[in-house]
């Protein structure tokens, strides 16, 4: 399995404080909520003190939105973006 993610895959990007405890909490959300993820990457976002956590969710849009909401309410998370396959990024609803 390489290349194109399956049709029911969504990429989620989370911009968050690059403090270890915040990142730990973010990974905890993925682990604890039993989220089916395919890949996980962590990069500096380009803004000082901010990291970008990106992952591919093997899930439909509803599940993806639910996961986005769990991040949305986390202290230290600044922005959550859902990228539906090749679509342009959309901001998760508040």
């Amino acid at each position, binding site marked *: 399995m390489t290349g194109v993610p399956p049709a029911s895959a969504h990429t989620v990007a989370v911009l968050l404080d690059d403090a270890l*405890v915040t990142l730990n909490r973010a990974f*905890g959300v993925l682990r604890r909520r039993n989220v089916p993820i395919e890949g996980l990457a962590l990069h500096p976002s380009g803004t000082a003190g901010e990291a970008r956590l990106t992952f591919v969710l093997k899930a439909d849009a509803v599940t993806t939105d639910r996961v986005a909401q769990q991040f949305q309410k986390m*202290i*230290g998370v600044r922005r959550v973006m859902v990228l539906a396959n090749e679509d342009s990024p959309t901001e998760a609803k508040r």
Partner: protein
Amino acid sequence: MSEMLSGAEILCRALVDAGVEVVFGYPGGAIMPFYHALPDHPQLRHILVRHEQAAAHAADGYARASGRVGVCVATSGPGATNLVTGLAAAHMDNSPVVAITGQVSRPMIGRDAFQETDIIGITLPITKQNYQVQDVSELAEVVAEAMAVALDGRPGPVLIDVPKDVQNQKIAYGAPRARARGQSRPLTPGASPGLEDGVRKAARLIAGAERPLIMVGHGVILAQAYNDVRALAEKTGIPVITTLLGISAFPDGHPLHLGMPGMHGEVHVNRAIQHADVIIGIGLRFDDRVTGNTASFAPQARIIHIDLDRAEIGKNVPVAVGIVGDARDITRRLVAAVEPRRCERWLEHIRGFVRTRAESYRGNLSPEAILASIYEASHGDCTIVTDVGQHQMWVAKLYPYQRPNTHITSGGLGAMGFAVPAALGVHLARPNGTVWAISGDGGFQMNMAEMATMVQEGLPVKMAVFNNGYLGMVRQWQQFFHEKRYSCTPIWSPDYLKLAEAYGIPGYRVKEAGELAEAVGRANAEPGPALVEFMIEQEANVFPMIPPGGSLSEPIEAEPAAAGGA
């Protein structure tokens, strides 16, 4: 003007500045500087518990009864880990608790020092936020922020881990400023964009409904939306269901009150859900103990879900209309938006589902009779704190709650051992009211050491122990689902009267209904703590029961005919 203060002194000052009056805790090596500073701050009353778990449950009970933040304190390592169950309970039930833990000194962190534990790592998934204070200059602001975060939006526990050398660090102290939270958003969004639209849609659904229901949860108590929910029910004639944590949000005995839904809900309540065409859910999360199998939950209903936490909308059940916001605010808007109506035919329909109970009890010592005696002795004016198990369900179903927020229990986590320590906290929040802690013989034995706390601190909590010689709820499951193999559920108890005597408090034993009024009356009238043991039917069950994962349409209403067979 500023003065030189130690971290420990700043910690005490910051708690006083935040309006804290009671702290539940237990000293130990890494928190000793805090305890050294504490006597200089008489505004902070410290309650010395007998186990840190009790400190966390007591802080939780205090928070639920007062609506303010409950504070608990423990040392590093075992002190901190003993808080975990209490924090998890507060997290599941959205109770604003701030836990302060000592930590080994910064140079020792990460070296597996004596009594070092990564309490930040351990509590990450069971706290809203946690902080390890790396420098004394952050301390006052961290405390102020933690207190705000615990209460803000959907409440919950926050932990502050303070290394011992930070407690000893000195710094010039000024009044704490509310710390700017970086670019983080506030947890409570203002009016959400779709709010007006959602309220309009909800009002339309309600107008067109033939069999509507209101289901209220803990959110109604947290938001103090009692009058608004009542106004909504009375304007529309829609019957009201209260979940385990929603109990007392709507007066029992009100003609529109149906009772508790779910696994141990009455048949007519669950049938009403299964027949409903519109459900207005306010401040509940449609927990699996409420819904049973979600695939068959309320199959005809369109659900209007009002919740403060957007992540709850659609999490467990699909919703037709989701409205994000404070229960009181949204319900008030909904009251204004709906047309007056009645639901007489629907209520008649529901009344047709009502079953009369026909269980018999040894010495007529039924749960109803016991709870009626507590109600009478306290003139219906007390707070009931329950533990977890059969007695918890009996109280939830049978106690005639009249006043809001007078029922406190560990709902989400279901932590046995909760009642006795939580009741300490409830008493401190409501010093002029009566508090009854009701437990089974299992849960009571988990935290009965807190009787010593009551005696030492002068906390007149009334304790009721439902003694059936079993871990009753597990035994019931064994009877129904595990071939009646009572594996490890018979439980021995000490002589509770002698135990009470050992603690220097009055104890009473009730074996039959005729003895109830006197024993409960005397215990209730005692100026100090008192204990009453009820020798109840050993193999009584809580009926009805929806089997775990089963449908609300298929309750077990009586003991399986061939118990012990297939």
